[in-house]
Every structure is written in C-alpha cells, then in structure tokens.
C-alpha cells in the first residue's frame, strides 16, 4: 500500500536523531522557500491570483459531477478511453488489466503522487511486469525500495553519498562522487528503458474538462518521453485535479511553478489530448485516463473540510512547515507529508488509521500563508481534531486518551466558576512545592507534564495571581 502505518511520534523521533537528514531538510526547504518567496513577489497581484485560483477550484469541486462528465465526454471525443476507479485496488487492477490485455512486459513511469498513493509499482511487480520510475528522484527511491519524502522532491532524504553507494550497489558501477556523473548514469540507463517500454504511466497536474486535455508539469523531460514514446499511455488522475476551462491554465501554471520551485515556468509542460492523431508525427496509439476516487468523494461530502481537495500538490506547505522541516516526509507514514499530508491522509485512509496526524502541527499557520489555493490548514486541522476526539473509544488500553479527557474535564470544571478557579490556583501553588527549585522553576513533573520538563523548565504558579494583585490595587485605590 502507498499508505504505510502512521506512527508519527515514533518515526519523527528517529528523523530528529538523523543528523544528515536534518541538514538536508533545512537546505532543501530553505532553498525552495526563498525561491518561492522571490518568485511570488515578482508577480504583480499575487494575492489576487491566489484568490482567483481558489475560487476556480472551489467552483470546480462544488460542481465536480458536472465537470467530470464533461471531461469524460471530451476524452472519449478525442479518441481516449476513460476508466473510473473507486479505490486503490480497483485503480491498480484497471491499469494492470490494460497492460495484461496488451501483453505489456515493461512499463516506464513519470512522477505521480496518485500512483504512489495506490502503490501501483507493487501491483505491476506482482503481475510480473517490469516497471521503471524515470524521474531522477523517483528512480533513486525505487532503487532503494523506499517511498517519497516530499511531494515534488521525492528523494530529499538521501544525501549525495547515499545515492553514490546505492547506484554502485544496484547498478554495478564505480562510486561516483560527482552528481553530474550520477545523473549521467541514470540518464543512460533510463534512455534504453524508454525505448523498450510497451506502456507509459503518468499522473497529471491538471485535467481540463472542456477539452479533455491532461497537463503534466515537469523539469526533466522524462514525463514527455513517458507519454509519447511507448505505444500505450495511461494517466492516473485524482478526481480533484479537474479545472473547467483551458484558459484557466494560464493562472494555474503561473501559480504552480512559482509556489513549488520558484520557477517562472517548469522546463516541460505537456498538454495531452487523446492518443496520436493521423496528422501527428509521434505519440501513443492508445490513451487511457483512469480517474481515481479513493476516498475523495467522502472528503467532498464534508463542507467543513472540502477545501482539502483544492490542493494542486505544489509542496509549498511542506517547505514552509516548521514541523516538516524537523521531521521530514517519512514521519507522516503516507505518500502525502507535511501539512497537506496531515489533512489529506486521515481523510483518505480513515481517521482512525492516522489519528496522530492532525495533532502533528503547532497550528502556526505558515502553510495557510503560502498555499496557492489558500487552504485554511489550521481550520481543517482543528475540524479533524474535533472528529478524532468524538470518535475515540476510551478503554483501559488508551490511558493517554483517558488522561487527556480527564484533564480537559477538570479544566472545564475549574474555569467555569471563578471561585473554583481561584481555589484551584491556590491548591496548585501549594501542590507544586515538592518540585519547585530555588530559582522558582519546576524541573521534573509527573506524566504528562514530564513531557515538558524532561527538556524544559516549567514556570511555577505565582503566590499572588494577577487577580489577587488586582484586588489589592483596587483596595489601595479605595
């Protein structure tokens, strides 16, 4: 499965201990962040552009049934075929069947989060079909047998040395130190894979309803080759990737490249409308569009969190997230990481399977500020937290949850009555005495506060609270 088990606390602890990873995360997120900030500041009316693309996404998602039907009609009109997949298994089955029916032995893939989400590679491998990732980052993690750790830079958790060792071991080449040399090796290997492939699988950044066009944005040219060289092209696209009109693309392409990498435009932008036409010199003979639901219609049904589907997968929220910066992508246990992962994974895979993720945020709002479609991440995270708390089944096994609930109930009891609140503060003042150091700090408290005091001092309750002091002041003022 593309979704591993979510063990955020455990996996993030590991990531924090991994010094090379920490360094790589800071370097990459700093670079992407400053590039994005520069690029966005150069576009007059950037904020207005964000509002406009959000509006288009909102309208599309709210009328998704209409636009999906239109897309299907236009893909068929252009000679393509459309398949509907309700979940990951069905999507994999459809694609593997297309391959089997046409005796496909070898598949090349361009970078696609949707195919990662359904773990398509495993399905191909089980069916005895060779599949090769052709995006350099994806190629690296496929060789390593890992999952992507960033939406647009899948191998950022790997250092140059890691890659050098990996290539040497898996490809039987000497240890090359130089990234250019490593890239050259990958390019040569991949070139023959493209020429021998029977089928190309891509995702899409956008699917245009009024023309049936899918748009693929990339920098390496591998997606262009994947979608044009093999005889069969299959595109797996989440149903939320729709945009209504061709002319909307200019806004979306403007905002996507800048938000993602800070580029004015990606190096390659491919517009694919159906298979090769008689007048075309090149292109696939067959074009299949597989539209993936996999939980998305459930997200659509919720007015509170529907905006999660506006995402155009630029990765800006990851690059600006202080949590992602310190824990990396793998801590999220899903192909989607960072703030977008924290909101989309629990909604797609089920809240009970990813209940840690909506809490794995300090609600700092940096993601909301840079999101090209202005997803209100704090609001969605808070809504998901509410759902998780409501759905919790408290049992002796979940002592953590029980302690938390008792804590909240106790807090509620005290703050609903200012006399009780005052008495509680007085009690706390005396109760803290055994832990209080000479400097007035608390250095070790029992669980759950130990999770604070293990690494930080905690302040002590004041002998005279503010309200005590106010009373004295009022007394003095008569």
């Amino acid at each position, binding site marked *: 499965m593309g979704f591993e088990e979510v063990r955020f*606390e455990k996996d*993030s*602890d590991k990531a*924090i201990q991994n010094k090379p990873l920490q360094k790589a995360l800071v370097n990459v997120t700093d670079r992407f962040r400053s590039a994005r900030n520069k690029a966005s500041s150069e576009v007059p009316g950037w904020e207005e552009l964000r509002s406009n693309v959000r509006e288009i996404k909102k309208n599309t998602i709210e009328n998704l049934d209409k636009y999906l039907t239109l897309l299907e009609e236009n893909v068929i009109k252009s000679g393509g075929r459309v398949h509907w997949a309700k979940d990951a298994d069905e999507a994999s089955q459809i694609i593997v069947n297309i391959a089997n029916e046409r005796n496909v032995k070898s598949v090349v893939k361009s970078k696609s989060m949707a195919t990662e989400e359904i773990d398509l590679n495993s399905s191909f491998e089980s069916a005895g079909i060779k599949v090769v990732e052709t995006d350099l980052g994806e190629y690296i993690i496929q060789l390593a047998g890992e999952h992507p750790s960033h939406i647009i830079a899948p191998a950022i958790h790997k250092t140059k040395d890691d890659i050098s060792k990996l290539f040497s071991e898996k490809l039987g080449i000497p240890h090359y130190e130089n990234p250019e040399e490593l890239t050259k090796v990958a390019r040569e290997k991949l070139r023959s894979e493209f020429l021998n492939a029977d089928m190309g699988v891509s995702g899409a950044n956008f699917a245009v309803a009024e023309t049936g066009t899918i748009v693929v944005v990339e920098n390496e040219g591998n997606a262009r080759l994947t979608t044009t060289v093999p005889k069969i092209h299959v595109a797996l696209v989440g149903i939320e990737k729709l945009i209504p009109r061709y002319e909307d693309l200019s806004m979306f392409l403007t905002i996507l490249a800048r938000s993602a990498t800070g580029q004015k435009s990606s190096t390659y932008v491919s517009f694919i409308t159906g298979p090769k036409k008689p007048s075309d010199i090149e292109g696939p003979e067959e074009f299949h569009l597989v539209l993936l639901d996999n939980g998305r219609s459930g997200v659509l049904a919720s007015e509170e969190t529907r905006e999660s589907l506006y995402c155009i997968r630029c990765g800006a929220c990851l690059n600006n997230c*202080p*949590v992602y*910066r*310190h*824990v990396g992508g793998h801590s999220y246990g899903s192909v989607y990481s960072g703030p977008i992962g924290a909101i989309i994974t629990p909604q797609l895979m089920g809240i009970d399977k990813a209940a840690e993720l909506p*809490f*794995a*945020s*300090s*609600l*700092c*709002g*940096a993601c*909301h*500020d840079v999101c090209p479609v202005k997803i209100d991440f704090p*609001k969605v995270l*808070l809504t998901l*937290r*509410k*759902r*998780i*708390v*409501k759905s919790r089944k408290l049992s002796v096994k979940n002592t953590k949850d029980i302690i*938390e*609930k008792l804590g*909240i*109930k106790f*807090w*509620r009891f005290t*703050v*609903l009555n*200012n006399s009780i*609140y005052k008495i509680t*503060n007085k009690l706390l003042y005396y109760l803290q005495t055994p832990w209080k150091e000479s400097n007035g*700090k608390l*250095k070790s408290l029992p669980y*759950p506060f130990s*999770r*604070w005091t*293990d*690494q*930080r*001092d*905690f*302040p*002590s*309750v*004041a002998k005279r*609270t*503010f*309200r*005590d*002091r*106010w*009373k004295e*002041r009022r007394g003095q003022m008569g």
Partner: protein
Amino acid sequence: MNNKNATKRPIKVYIFITCLVDTFFPEVGESMLKVLDDLGVEVDFIEEQTCCGQPAFNSGYQDDARVVAKRFISIFEKTLNHDSNTETYIICPSGSCTSMVKVFYEDLFKNSPEILKKVSRIKENTYEFSEFLIKVLNTVDIGAKYDGVITYHDSCHLLRELRVKDAPRQLINSVKGVKFKEMDLHDACCGFGGTFSIKFPNVSVSMLDEKIDCIVNSGADTVVSADMGCLMNIGGALSRRNIPIKVIHLAQLLASRG
C-alpha cells in the same frame, strides 16, 4: 510622552488577562496595567473572567471549548453596553488568546447565529495589547527605558492570524536605550503550539532548538514577544541550558523605566 489620542470620547479598557498570565506570570498583567495607567486610560478588570476556551478548542474538545467560550462572551459582552460617552475596548496581552476570540470564535459558533452576533461585537472591540497602543491610541513612545540588546519573536497567532507585525517592533524601537536586532527565522514557530508541546515533545524541542540558536546568534541579551505561551517555551529552554538571555513580555519592556 507622545500620546496623540485621535479619538474624542474618553477610552475605557477592560483587560482580558489570559489564564497563563493570571496564574504564572501576573507581573505581565501588572506591566500592562502600568503602561495603560501611564497613558491615562481608565482600566477595569472583571474578576469573573477565567479562560477563553482555547486549550480545549485546540485539542479537539470543541463542545467543552464552546461552554467555556460562551461564558467568556457573556462576561465581556456586558462591558460593551456602556454609555455612549466612552469608547470601550477589550485588551489582551496575548496574540494567541486574542485570535481565539477574534478569529476562532466564529468557527466555534458557526451554527449559532445569536451568539455570532455577540461575537462580532466583541471582536470589533477586542485588541491585542501592542496593536491597541499603535492603532487605537496612536501611541508609539510611552517613555520606556531599557538598557539592552533586544530581539523579537513573532508569535504565530499574532503574526499570521491577526496580521500584527510592525506594531511590536515600532514599540520596541521607541524604548530608550534599546538596540534592536532582528533574528533569523523571527517568524518561525518556537514549537509551543499548546498541547502540541507535550503530545510531541521531541518535535517541539527540535523546533525550539532552532529558535534558541536564532536568538543566541542574534547577539541579543533579551528576547521579547507578545505571548507568554511562546516565552514560557523559549524561557524554559534558556533556563534549563543556563543561557543568560532574559525573557520578557512586550508589556514588561514598555513598563520599564530604566
């Protein structure tokens, strides 16, 4: 003193003292009082007040948060029913608790139009302390004196929910004797995040480590912010590590007289 009070009617301020300030840092509330006193503003404190409800809201316990928030609303709503001869404000020494009231109450009560009406009245008259000084009182220099090199930590809610960035800096720069040094990543979260800090302590402290590095590298001897949540976190690490950098709330800085 440079109080160019643009409004004609006298101003009355009801202070909204956060539970953190009341319980752990009463001196911050007193400093805010001193500043307002010195500016000649009439101040009142309603003793019934306790908490705005944010701890439960952020932890997902919205029903509990709603009950506590309702209580807050009924207490502070009364303050706005004063005679029309005074302008009444609710002032809070925290960007976070202010944004709970000004931003998140709307979400919490989205299904209760009656309460929303009250929320919108309260919202209009509620200000975080630094924004109130600059925007409402038009006051920058309040005669404070402090001998030190100061760096400022932007608290997330003040910066990104309330969009207050310049006001604290203007106020800091107006203090005599202060040398201001902007730190790297001044707008990055310190890792507090309420219960986040104990749910994921190692992530929280990893974020905090970077913040502490930025503070130390700024060369400042004092770090200032407008939220005691952040300062409790930052201060907790500084004192544990014996780093001799002072941690004070903006109100404390503005109340110093050298």
